């Protein structure tokens, strides 16, 4: 028997070395009870993100949006020492960018700034996080702004359908909640609700800090000790797992739109596991297949897409299309998925996909802020070290694993439709038929 050592394995071995090198740039330590993760990279810009664990587990559905509002009020409202406009003026004058987001699994407050304004930036960050006023005027103003922003964001139906699809799939669970809130929930909140929520979540036990930049550990430790380490200790908050979902279903909602929107949601594995990486590759390959099928059909406006799930507690993949012919497109998607699962991908397809997958994945993570996000997401999922495994996982992935993992993700599809009712029938939203035979272990050529 001839043993063939494929270049990809050699490359994978190389990548293990690179992985070790990459991790060398990261250290994690504790500053008076606050976990800090530092990635030291050259450059003039620093990104700092304070992550808040829990996400939608932190509030009841009646208060959905409260965490986003609390974070924004802290960041964009008055502090005890400065007015919101003074904070904004200082931030602008030193090139400090601010962001706040509450998501399904965690929230964060982020800043990016030139290293030369290190002290000023931390003074400002400390001010808004340790000493926010959270007053009535800001509550009213920022709540209105948040509501207006939500409306703008949801005007494109392709964004609205994301939230609807999550609600339909995860009814009765934390993932049913909309992190940015609804009109009803936002205007049902009181200022006391927001203050209480801020006090509950903004603790050293519930938060961790990620910093990326040309910063030494000692420098960061000193700064954190005099700023964010002043946050209260707090108590460990419990985050319940999500272990029940609606599963198979079809939710059809009428809306007069130029194009009709369809989203199918299916289970997905943990993004950081080997199966999760196989799933990401598989979904990209499936997306290519769907695009090719749409192109071959010749009468559709936009190609369907398949996107891998990234949530932590119950990740889900999505299939999505906007179309003038929803029934025809649904048939095409279902047929293509079923054929793909039955045939599996070829090794050549997978090997061609891997390099692009890596390039495109990492091109979006180059900024200090994006690197902080990658570390923060991995830490929120259990360990920041997970952020460094991807390249080796991708290069080492076999087509048999990709085919096997992808086939396992279509146990159910929860369909959501937003568009003209007259163009679809309930039976159009069929489930995916599983392949009759399991995939062989061997690779398809």
């Amino acid at each position, binding site marked *: 028997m001839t043993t063939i050592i494929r270049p990809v394995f050699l490359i994978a071995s*190389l*990548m293990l070395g*690179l992985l070790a*090198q*990459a991790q060398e740039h990261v250290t994690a330590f504790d500053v008076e009870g606050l976990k800090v993760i530092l990635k030291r*990279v*050259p*450059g*003039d*810009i620093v990104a700092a993100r304070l992550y808040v664990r829990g996400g939608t587990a932190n509030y009841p559905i009646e208060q959905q949006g409260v965490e986003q509002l609390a974070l924004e009020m802290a960041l964009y409202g008055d502090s005890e020492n400065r007015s919101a406009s003074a904070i*904004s003026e200082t*931030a*602008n*004058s*030193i*090139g*400090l*960018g*601010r*962001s706040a987001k509450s998501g399904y699994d965690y929230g964060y407050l982020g800043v*990016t700034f*030139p290293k*030369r304004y290190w002290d000023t930036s931390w003074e400002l960050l400390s001010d808004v996080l340790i000493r926010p006023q959270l007053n009535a005027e800001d509550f009213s103003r920022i709540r209105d702004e948040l509501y207006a922003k939500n409306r703008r964001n949801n005007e494109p139906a*392709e964004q609205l359908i994301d939230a609807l699809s999550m609600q339909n799939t995860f009814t009765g669970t934390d993932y049913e909640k909309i992190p940015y809130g609804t009109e009803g929930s936002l205007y049902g909140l009181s200022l006391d609700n927001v203050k209480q929520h801020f006090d509950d979540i903004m603790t050293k036990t519930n938060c961790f800090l990620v910093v990326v930049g040309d910063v030494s550990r000692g420098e960061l430790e000193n700064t954190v000790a005099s700023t964010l380490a002043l946050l209260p200790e707090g108590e460990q908050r419990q985050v319940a797992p999500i272990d029940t979902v609606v599963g198979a279903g079809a939710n059809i909602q009428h809306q007069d739109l130029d*194009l009709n929107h369809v989203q199918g949601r299916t289970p997905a594995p943990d993004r950081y596991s080997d199966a999760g990486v196989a799933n*990401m590759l598989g979904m*990209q390959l499936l*997306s*290519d297949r769907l*695009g*090719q099928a*749409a*192109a071959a059909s010749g009468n*559709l*406006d*936009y*190609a369907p*897409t398949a*996107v*891998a799930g990234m949530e932590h507690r119950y990740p889900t993949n*999505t299939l*999505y299309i*906007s179309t003038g012919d929803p029934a025809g497109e649904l048939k095409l998607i279902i047929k293509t998925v079923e054929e793909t699962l039955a045939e599996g991908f070829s090794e050549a397809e997978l*090997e*061609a*996909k*891997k*390099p*692009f997958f*890596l*390039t*495109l994945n*990492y*091109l979006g993570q*180059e*900024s*200090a802020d994006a*690197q902080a996000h990658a570390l923060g997401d991995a830490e929120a999922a259990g360990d920041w070290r997970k952020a460094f495994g991807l*390249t080796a996982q991708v*290069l080492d992935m076999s087509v048999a694993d990709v085919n096997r993992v992808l086939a396992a993700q279509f146990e159910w599809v929860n369909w959501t439709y937003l568009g003209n009712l007259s163009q679809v029938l309930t039976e159009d939203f069929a489930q995916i038929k599983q392949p009759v035979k399991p995939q062989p272990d061997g690779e398809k050529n």
Partner: protein
Amino acid sequence: MKQPDQKKTGNPRHQRVKNTAEDTDADTEKDNGNAAYTICQFSAQRSGQSSRKRKKRDDPAKVLFATHCPEVCRQFRNDQVKAAQKEEQAQAKQPELGGIGLLIFGLHFAVTKEQLIPGVITQPLEVPIVEYENLMTDGHGSAKYVLHSVEIKDGMQRALLTILVFLSFGPLVFGQFGLPENFHHRTLPNGLEVLVVENPAVPLATIELAVRHGAIHEAADENGLSHLYEHLFFKTNAQYPSADSIIGRINELGIVFNATTGDERVNYFISLSNAFLNEGIDFMAAAARSPRFSAEEIEREFDILESKLQRAESNPVHFMIQDINKALWGEHASRKNALGARDVIYNATTAQLEAMHRRYFVPDNCILLVSGDVDHEKVMQRCAQAFGDWEKPADGADNTIQVPEFNPLEASVGVITLDDRTQTPLVLAAFQGPVTSKDRTATFAADVLTYMLSQATSRLNAALIKSELAYQVAVGYNTQKYASPITVFLVPQPQYIQAAMDTLSAEINKWQDPDYFTEEELDQAKKMLVIQELYSRSTPSEVVHNLSYWWASADLKYFSEYTDRIEALTREDIARVAADYIVGAPNVTGILLTKDMQRMLEMDSFTPLNTTEQ
């Protein structure tokens, strides 16, 4: 309203009215597109792995094209700051010029010529026997290492040559040009500069080849060839002779590639996993060294370039800028047109492109930049292997590529451009600004001056916008080596067009007064320019664009000293650049109107801005 298909025919030209009190010579002429900086993005696969938003179906090997602002550096800076300050945008919005703004910057795109590397002496490597005495440089031009009479034979030729070339690098020299410690610069014996930026942000490598080549190097009958060449760079070559083979290689390596053509620089760049760094360098070497220029590929690019020309011509401002450029730069106006001339592009031949390759794609007219999670020693080694035996053809550039002197503008000129698609009257004045080859200090001061003037809090803004004479006013400048305008863009309220122009002229005449700007304005402008520059350098795949831009429009020292030079400027420096290049200088003032507007405003001619005190 949809325009008729003008493919390969060009737009019907607009009436052009010359000068002020002079004759009005309405002539119809072909137009060749404006000096728009162009960027051509290629993707061999469907991109956007996490994109769930609706996306037009595209071919797996689709080529995407887009026309962008000419001022790549500033645009990148702005993009970076915008991204980083996303949440702040609503509060700190810059004047929105929209499509007009993009084209206005098109005017700025100035000339570039090669930058000679002082002291570098190179001779072609001759195989199988190499007899040369090559002086290695430390980046400042001083000789460091000498190789003598190297004999290389048979199959060992390339390997030995590579080793020798690599060894000849010698020990590292840090801090060249005052660059940061993670920057490593060397010059190969053949004159090719290599600059490595180590940054472990993500496991990627970005490889960029920048060439001192662009519109500035082209005579009128060559205008557009650099742009056409740019479109062919990632096409077939000797190593990948078929479309399948090169697309296959791009897919194998996961290469995302892109290229831009400007007035003074063309840059080609790829990003890929750092696991394929060596293969990426080899890929770039094959593209740079052995293009095929197949007739079929050239023909295919005509359509793509035509669409870019049409896109530029779809905006009437394009024609105003064309008119202004002709008046401002005279016989060399085509050298400020990076997009290129339609007739030149359509008549391009393989022989022309091959000649261009021999002349400009030579080691000492290029710089190779590599950034990302890479080891600079390994990069240098591979570059030596891939480029070390890259020889300069006998008729190649000899470091004496000449860019003709741009004649100073003798007197102010007024130009009326008529286009019935114009929505509102626009005024654009252009002055011949400072260039790095002649007045380096003034180029820094011009950045600060134009920044201050364009702020919503400026006196200029108060005089024109708060007084409700105009909707917008902005002042721009783009650093170049050979020719670059300072522009003043005005969108007057139509009924007050003359009053707005008079006010603008009066304001311009105050700019040479050091007290026109407050210390606070100056400090804030310097601070913000430095911040923008820092953001523009913050990502590995973009810092190489920034570096190669300065390399071509000045030199690498300009990059390293930029922030210090900006911070050192005084109000007197600002006043001096205003006095030398604006207040005391002639300009070309253009006005864009419809025929109806012209009739209603009774504007057959007009006095250019700022001419009363000359």
